[in-house]
């Protein structure tokens, strides 16, 4: 079983501590999330010593770190990393309820748009994604396919 001291190594001369993170346990998004949280209090550099791991190096910003501070920072980073990883999983599993609550909260707060708001809204030609081609006319749909089939035939003949 790994302890913090086994996966985190202190470089006193560089005033930094490095952690090696198992990439199969912590998705990259979680590493980014945790690293971002620490940008204001230390310098953060990420690297990949091998395909299965990410190394996070946290460097003390100003002056000499108090005794134990680097290990404590590594410990806090590990906690934040776990938090980010778990949060990503929860968000994936609870996406529907999170989205519906947020949508209801914001729509309740914003209220219905006024005529001025609607006037400013950009109703473009491409209103929405249409993967099944439902909004396309018959001519558009089969005319395009017909043209593409002809172009493909021409390419194959070359």
């Amino acid at each position, binding site marked *: 079983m790994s302890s913090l001291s086994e996966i985190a190594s202190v470089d006193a001369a560089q005033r930094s501590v490095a952690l090696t993170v198992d990439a199969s346990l912590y998705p*990259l*998004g979680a590493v*980014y*999330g945790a*690293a*971002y949280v620490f*940008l204001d209090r230390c*310098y*953060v*550099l*990420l*690297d*990949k010593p091998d395909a299965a791991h*990410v190394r996070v190096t946290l*460097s003390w*910003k100003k002056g000499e770190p108090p005794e134990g501070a680097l290990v404590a920072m590594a410990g806090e980073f590990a906690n934040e990393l776990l938090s980010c990883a778990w949060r990503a999983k929860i968000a994936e599993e609870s996406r529907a309820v999170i989205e519906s609550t947020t949508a209801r909260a914001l729509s309740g707060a914003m209220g219905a748009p006024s005529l001025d708001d609607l006037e400013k809204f950009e109703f473009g030609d491409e209103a929405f994604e249409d993967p099944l081609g439902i909004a396309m006319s018959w001519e558009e749909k089969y005319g395009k396919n017909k043209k593409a089939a002809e172009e493909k035939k021409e390419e194959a003949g070359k």
Partner: protein
Amino acid sequence: MIELRFHRDLYRGESVDAAAKALAPYATTIDRAEEPAHWVLRVTASNPERERRVAGEIANRALGITVRGAG
């Protein structure tokens, strides 16, 4: 001189460039190099502590821009 190695799987090249550009006024030199797996910056400044700070700020900025772009 401080060498910063930004792994291509973890940082976007444009983010590294943007960070280097933003911090260039505070450095003496910032040299760029490319390796198969890394973007590399070599940073010099007027004294070791300043060099450390500039290199650190470049690293943070590159990460910040990469993360914001990944969202």
